[in-house]
């Protein structure tokens, strides 16, 4: 199962190395990792997407991460209401004939063309991983020359909906 782990860390040299080292030492599998600054000076946020066999394994990972002295807080946010976004840049082949078709695909995904050359376009798309994956699938037949993804970055929403809210259906 997929888990999203969000952590705040001290922005010190070698901190990312400590984390990736821990993952390889403990034999954990990272799907993506993204790092960036936060509103606090000297504190960075790292978002990891990992694959685990069980909840117990995920718990072990958060505990081991928590032990790291440079890590301030670790939260497994997979089960919370979160906002998660990823950015992808896709360089896709485009001839004058296919250009319009591509534009038609780009629009509903709210992606943007950020560079055009004689035979290719660069598309920028942001959103949740699933959306990006769907878009890539769609664009593949045109010929992807290059692809770069940032990995997910995420944090919990300001308002947490109570978990397991029953959806109500109207029978009328």
């Amino acid at each position: 199962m997929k888990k999203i782990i969000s952590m705040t860390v001290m922005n010190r040299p070698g901190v990312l190395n400590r984390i990736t080292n821990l993952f390889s030492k403990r034999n954990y599998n990272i799907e993506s990792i993204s790092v960036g600054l936060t509103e606090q000076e000297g504190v960075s946020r790292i978002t990891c997407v990992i694959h685990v066999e069980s909840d117990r394994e995920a718990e072990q990972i958060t505990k081991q991460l928590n032990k790291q002295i440079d890590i301030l807080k670790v939260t497994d946010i997979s089960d919370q209401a979160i906002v998660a976004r990823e950015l992808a840049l896709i360089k896709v082949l485009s001839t004058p004939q296919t250009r319009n078709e591509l534009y038609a695909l780009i629009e509903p995904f709210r992606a943007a063309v950020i560079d055009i050359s004689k035979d290719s376009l660069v598309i920028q798309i942001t959103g949740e991983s699933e959306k990006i994956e769907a878009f890539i699938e769609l664009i593949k037949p045109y010929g992807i020359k290059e692809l770069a993804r940032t990995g997910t970055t995420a944090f919990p929403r300001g308002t947490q909906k109570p978990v397991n809210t029953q959806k109500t259906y109207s029978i009328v």
Partner: protein
Amino acid sequence: MLQQAAITESKAKAKMVTGADLLLEALEKEKVEVIFGYPGGAVLPIYDKLYDSKILHVLPRHEQGGIHAAEGYARISGKPGVVIATSGPGATNIVTGLTDAMMDSLPLIVFTGQVPTNVIGSDAFQEADVLGITTPITKYNYQVRNIEDIPRIVKEAFYIASSGRPGPVLIDIPKDIAASVSKPPEEQEIKLPGYQPTVQPNYLQIKKLSEAVSRANKPVILAGAGVLLSKASNELKEYAEQQQLPVIHTLLGLGGFPADHKLFVGMAGMHGCYASNMGLSECDLLINIGARFDDRLTGNLQFFAPHATVAHIDIDPAEIGKNVQTAIPVVADAKEALKQLVKQNGKPPVHGEWLEQIHKWQEEYPYYYGESAALKPQKVMEMLYEKTTGDAIVVTDVGQHQMWAAQYYQFNQANRWVTSGGLGTMGFGLPASIGAQLADPDRCVVAVLGDGGFQMSTQELTVIKELNLPVKIAIFNNLSLGMVRQWQEIFYDKRYSHSKIPIQPSFVKLAEAYGIKGYEINTAEEAEVILEEVLSNREPVLLDIRIDPHENVYPMIAPGKGLHEMVGVKP
């Protein structure tokens, strides 16, 4: 005017300090008594200052010996052991010791020299990426980038190494930083917002545990080295007596609970005693205090404590639930948790039959060994126990002799036992005995070694002579790498691939070459006389004890088997 300026300038100059000055000052502040260090190019500025220092400096003959000595010191004194090594090879030579200390939770402060800041990353002479190499094998590591940070970093390092679950902390100091000059920096506070060990237990968890104890019919305590590290022996005894709980030890926990106590069961694990392993297999409540459910203790997890509700007291939350599902987790310092448990004063469990059962197991299936013409190592270990009245510090290497020491030497007090458990480092014993003796100078220290492990750190004999440490070196010589030989005998069809080492130097002559008295012991009678003589004086001595080369360690649990599947329980 000019004169005044000159005076202020000279005053300012007089106040200037180097990085090395700051370092030694910080060590003195931490009341460091002894440094195990080996000089080299990158630490020359530090060594120049050490020349005038009051701190005792011990020069091992190999950096690995230095760090093992520091481990022995840390284990016995309870204070961090301090090590200095130079850059490059000096630093890589301490990698084994760091890993060993990390596995066995020993507090160490290790300083490594580094090439000057301007050439870091250029593959300079004696450069190694020490931070990269040691990140997974230290609790924390630093590279000093500014001279002003030295006092704070040293303070933080001592705090990190000795608090929470102890461990080694490494500080990498580039040569130019140690040599550079600055005004004495202002005092900086410790800045560790991400490090706050939980010391006090959660009251509700303690209550839950206390109630579980009252309800249990077959409770046991499994006490690990956490009891020793938190100095909780008295509290453990008080609690076990209050609730009449039998106490089982891990290898590293020995001494946490007196072995001559009627509630003491014995050591559990691969070579543990029958009563302990059966106790773990049959109990209905298992209270783990400061042990980490190592695979050498649990055997096959599938068969481990199948009927038990598991409670686990540990200061490291990551150890709880790591290997064994835990119903009652208590994150706390062992001493604090035990104090709280005693205070609860819960109703003791009704478990008379269970205690009787354990005593019956103990009586029916004690450790045993056969008689033969050849000298039995177990016999010698028993003699060592008697002749030191059980009060010696026993330091071991790794292998068969280590298991015999754990089985036959009865540890009735804390801080009498130094061994490499988690990592199982051969070559550990001899240097560790140096550190142990320095930590407790008046006590008898016996270094129980095998002939293999001894030859991995023979060079440290010089240090024993140099400091005239009265260490009693007892080599249990079976002309082989005994534990490897035993496994090859049992699991590899007696194909003794490279485990027999009959060609050896004369250890007695070797000892004499180092200026240490040596004796060869071949029979029990000789052992009787020679042990009596050498254990009563305060001289270092080396004993080459020729034991039965065919002797194996029993009982034994084969890898992949459960604790209840011991072999060699009975003659």
